[in-house]
């Protein structure tokens, strides 16, 4: 049974992790519509297919639940396996990111709940909810909601902090998932490690740019 074996659990982590990465890559490309003034049109087109949107959300929820549950289980098992530390310990290869996967993951997860309530279900700031306020073309004004939200320093700080957590998680997670799936060898591993860090950096820039540019006033309505 995959879920009972140590490698099996890691494989589930790696596959669910890679699916989540795939999602956030698509999500980032979708978000970039805001730079060309196309966010409302994009959102409108996606939500024209409500059944598909809901099936997709359910699948994402399942992937997330598996990733979180097994992530917590791995963490607890690993902590138990090393009950006593050293008075002096030097890390030769482990990084801040690799040692804090559970925490960067959980903070990303907590942010996700906020993010869904904020922009998907729009219950946090109902006064700017795109579900109710429409643009000139009669579409939900997603772009206006985003612009107004990120002018608030508290809101944009939360988003920027969450993006930092996610990027740390992925700076270790991407390369780790390839190693776990056995898609690496002596020759390719150094390149995979570098590519993973670069990908995490690209995702960081792609996601941090929107709240940052709106907050410092470069991007306006």
């Amino acid at each position, binding site marked *: 049974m995959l879920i009972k074996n140590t490698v099996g659990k890691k494989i589930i982590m790696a596959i669910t992790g890679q699916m989540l990465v795939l999602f956030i890559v698509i999500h980032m490309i979708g978000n970039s519509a805001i730079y060309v003034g196309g966010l409302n049109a994009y959102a409108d087109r996606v939500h024209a297919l409500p059944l598909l949107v809901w099936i997709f959300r359910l699948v994402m929820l399942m992937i997330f639940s598996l990733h979180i549950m097994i992530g917590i289980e791995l963490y607890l098992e690993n902590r138990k396996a090393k009950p006593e530390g050293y008075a002096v310990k030097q890390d030769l290869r482990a990084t801040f990111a690799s040692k804090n996967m559970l925490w960067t993951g959980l903070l990303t997860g907590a942010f996700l709940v906020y993010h869904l309530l904020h922009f998907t279900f729009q219950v946090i700031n109902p006064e700017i909810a795109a579900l109710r306020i429409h643009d000139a073309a009669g579409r939900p004004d997603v772009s206006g909601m985003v612009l107004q939200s990120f002018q608030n320093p508290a809101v944009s700080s939360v988003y920027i902090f969450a993006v930092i957590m996610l990027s740390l998680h992925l700076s270790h997670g991407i390369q780790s998932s390839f190693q776990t799936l056995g898609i*690496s060898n002596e020759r390719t591993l150094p390149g995979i490690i570098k590519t993973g860090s670069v990908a995490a950096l690209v995702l960081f820039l792609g996601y941090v740019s929107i709240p940052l540019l709106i907050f410092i006033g470069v991007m306006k309505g």
Partner: protein
Amino acid sequence: MNLTLYIWRQKGPDKKGGLQQFKAENISPEMSFLEMLDVVNEQLIKIGQEPIAFDHDCREGICGMCSQVINGVPHGPQERTTVCQLHMRHFKHGDSIYIEPWRARAFPVIKDLIVDRSALDRIIQAGGYISVHTGGVPDANAVLISKKSADTAMDASECIGCGACVAACPNGSAMLFTAAKITHLAMLPQGKIEAARRVCVMTEAMMREGFGNCTNHYECQAACPKDIRVSFIARLNREFIKAQLKDTG
């Protein structure tokens, strides 16, 4: 040279331990680390105190008995070197040196710097072997093995089972050890036959013994005195996936 040592002392498995300070005086840079400890122990015996207990056997870097975490690194600061092959010329007069036992739930301390590593033997017992008929010695070249496979198997077989990978791993995982054994056998025709079962039972034995899961920190490779590579862990993972696709038990 003179050194200040902080060494983990623990009277027995269930006793409380702690770091104790010692002075090592007139140490020659030509000495090995273990010889330096021998000098300290002789002084202790002379003044009627109990010597520091530590594991060692061959003292030439091949048996895997020596096992000390020196200044936070298993086997000390010299790469690809066991404690017994570490020389005092890598330290300076006046240095402080912290010496601790391997730490992991699966490696309980027996006394001072000595830990019980028989959990590694039980991982081998679970599946780190091949089943053959005994009898006459087979002809040396009857089974053809490519040079590349033989080389990889030899690289993996360099593992001396010292447990430095477990000591270095923040998760106390024995994946590098297990991966070396899996690779060693899976590369050879004789080992391929039982490869699928082997990878399953050996990884299960690893968890049963209380080792942690691998999360790819790669601390193990950096600490390994025999330079066993984490690419063997990727190979173990591939062997595991292959085993899932087959349906032999």
